[in-house]
């Protein structure tokens, strides 16, 4: 593991400042550009739901569980533990969240959801950190166990509760939602005008302030929160050092085991919170199979986001947005996305032409033309393709954006105390 760091510096003379950093103005510019583009598509296609408040709040609600699972993955992997057990921890979160939620109120449910997930994390930590077993095996085992245990326990708990069954819990009291009264109405009217860009911004902002569950607010705050803890505190530094070079951390007196344990349990807790969110906020009920692979999608969002909180949130947001588009407007919205894609490809065409990569330019031009044709010749697309939209989008974004993924160096590697050189 701690093989020679000596040869790692293979790159020869390197100009400083070669790394272009995304600064705030740049990010804002990109967001503005994206919004303008979507707005354009909305105006052309007439798919007004594209940026409506409902669309945005729907997207947010779908994104939160995925984002929380992703953040969970981030915590674990930053400490060097691959967590494919997120799905299971999320299941534990839905179950415990609902179990406590229907009996003692939603907030207790949230708390127990976190605890349930963290228990899954603890198990994962024991297997991977103490026993040093392959992280994927352990994650798979946690997933299987979580499914088995929750289904088994439902027979003794929900089955006997009024309004519940062996497959679902009784209803859980909802959390009171936050709406900023004057503001959301004003934004709603503004959005209703369908003006270029302005209505879109109003819609987006409206979506962010209307019928907001307090848990959504917490989840969103956890993104910068995670960043702050991991990158701005000594606790976070130690935790990350365990994922980058545990032997070095050990040599400086860091108790690597401890940090790995904490990280994996926090990871489980976050996934559990995501599960609790599903049960308490999204649906108000526990339902067998409710997570439906969101833990894996969360993991994908984290990789998409390059093991960074902002990126993870972006990945989850993208997924939530396309998913919500698909659910709310179905064929019409996704049809409008064809136009968006075509326009993006035209932009890509210009870029490649400028860069003089003619083959790529050609491919972009042809695909753009095909998409334009498809868009123009149809009014809708088959519901089966609509279904695939979120996944295709994710795949396309990944394939087209430059990949410079950088996972923590010691991620997934076994570590034993006192074995470094």
């Amino acid at each position: 593991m701690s093989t020679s760091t000596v040869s790692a510096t293979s790159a020869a003379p390197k100009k400083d400042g070669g790394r272009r950093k995304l600064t705030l103005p740049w990010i804002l510019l990109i967001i503005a550009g994206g919004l303008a583009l979507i707005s354009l598509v909305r105006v052309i296609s007439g798919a007004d739901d594209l940026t409506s408040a409902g669309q945005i709040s729907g997207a947010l609600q779908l994104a939160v569980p995925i984002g929380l699972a992703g953040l969970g993955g981030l915590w674990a992997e930053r400490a060097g533990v691959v967590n494919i057990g997120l799905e299971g921890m999320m299941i534990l979160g839905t179950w415990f969240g609902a179990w406590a939620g229907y009996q003692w109120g939603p907030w207790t449910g949230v708390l127990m959801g976190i605890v349930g997930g963290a228990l899954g994390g603890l198990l994962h930590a024991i297997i991977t950190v103490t026993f040093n077993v392959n992280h994927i095996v352990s994650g798979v085992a946690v997933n299987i166990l979580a499914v088995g245990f929750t289904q088994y326990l439902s027979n003794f708990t929900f089955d006997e509760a009024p309004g519940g069954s062996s497959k679902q819990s009784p209803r859980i009291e909802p959390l009171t939602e936050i709406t900023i009264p004057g503001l959301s109405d004003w934004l709603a009217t503004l959005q209703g005008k369908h003006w270029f860009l302005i209505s879109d911004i109003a819609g987006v902002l409206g979506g962010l302030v209307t019928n907001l569950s307090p848990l959504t607010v917490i989840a969103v705050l956890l993104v910068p929160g995670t960043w702050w803890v991991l990158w701005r505190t000594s606790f976070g530094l130690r935790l990350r050092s365990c994922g980058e070079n545990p032997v070095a951390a050990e040599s400086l007196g860091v108790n690597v085991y401890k940090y790995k344990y904490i990280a994996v349990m926090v990871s489980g807790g976050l996934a559990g919170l995501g599960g609790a969110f599903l049960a308490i906020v999204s649906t108000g009920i526990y339902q067998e199979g409710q997570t439906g692979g969101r833990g894996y999608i969360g993991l994908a969002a984290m990789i998409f986001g390059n093991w960074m909180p902002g990126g993870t949130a972006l990945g989850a947001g993208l997924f939530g947005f396309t998913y919500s588009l698909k659910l709310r407007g179905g064929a019409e919205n996704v049809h409008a996305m064809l136009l968006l894609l075509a326009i993006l490809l035209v932009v890509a065409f210009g870029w490649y032409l400028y860069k003089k990569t003619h083959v790529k330019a050609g491919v972009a031009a042809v695909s753009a033309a095909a998409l334009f044709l498809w868009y123009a010749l149809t009014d809708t697309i088959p519901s089966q393709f609509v279904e695939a939209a979120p996944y295709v989008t994710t795949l396309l974004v990944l394939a087209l954006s430059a990949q410079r993924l950088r996972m923590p160096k010691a991620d997934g590697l076994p570590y034993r105390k006192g074995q470094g050189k």
Partner: protein
Amino acid sequence: GGKKSSDSTASSSESSSSSKSAAIAYDIGGRGDQSFNDAAFAGLEKAQKDLKIKGAEAEPSEGESEADKVQRLTELARKGNNPVIGVGFAYAPAIKKVAAKFPNTTFGLIDDTSVQDKNIANLVFNEEQGSYLAGVAAAKASKSGKVGFIGGVEVPLIKKFEAGFTQGVKDTNPNAEVLSAYLTQPPDFSGFAKPDLGKATAQGQLAKGADVIYAAAGLAGSGAIEATATAGKWAIGVDSDQYNQAGLSKYKDKILTSVTKDVQDSVYNLIKSVEDGKPQTGEIRYGLDKDGVGLADSNPAYKQMTDVTAAVEKAKADIIAKKITVKTAP
């Protein structure tokens, strides 16, 4: 599973035909789905009570294949259960094979008529007819002229619901618009189990101006009902009378009506026919005529809307009189 079924089944597995026993093999989801499977179970339960017979149940496991279904049915038949009922069309190929091996056992098959035999009773429903009535009610109750349909999983069975509903709406108000959506595609059947998807979809339709939403989405429908009711619009339930469903009591006032599908009775009837020595065989169709499907009217608000109920009654009469034929595919 748990403790409950143990008392009845543990014994039936040992001693076979000393006393009569009927069995059902569930569809994916199994007992406790508060929908299809539970309705079948209710039929069995009623038979246990009224006919003093024993009941056996068996659930499928996830990712199983035809062979497992064959094995399950064989086992149930071998233990002397009669009838053996397969809940859901997925059992069709398996029943075809097993029925041939047990000529003296009656096999019930719900939702499918593609396999037929002397000892197979195909219990099918005219879901499209019930849905047609829902369409009539929706078109009448709608002020915006836009109504929504949400299907759980896009399979032919649910498309029947959509077809009937759409036809009912259009026949009542040709200018009305039906927004329809499905939550997932097969073989991803989680569309029946994810209320949050139902909710998001309903919200999308509401945003587009729909003011009546019919959700044929199993449990996911509860999400749609929640969203619709919260927005103060009308929801239409499915399968059982959802107005009376405990989990939805909070939204019951906005549940206009529900399209019922009497799986319970069909199961009970089959068991009874076997018990009476005159086992049903061939296609047993439950339509509006036999009240096998229908529209619930437990919501007082619905009953007060006399123009709606009148239109529904008329449509029902027309269908029974075959003046209207309802399409089974959109």
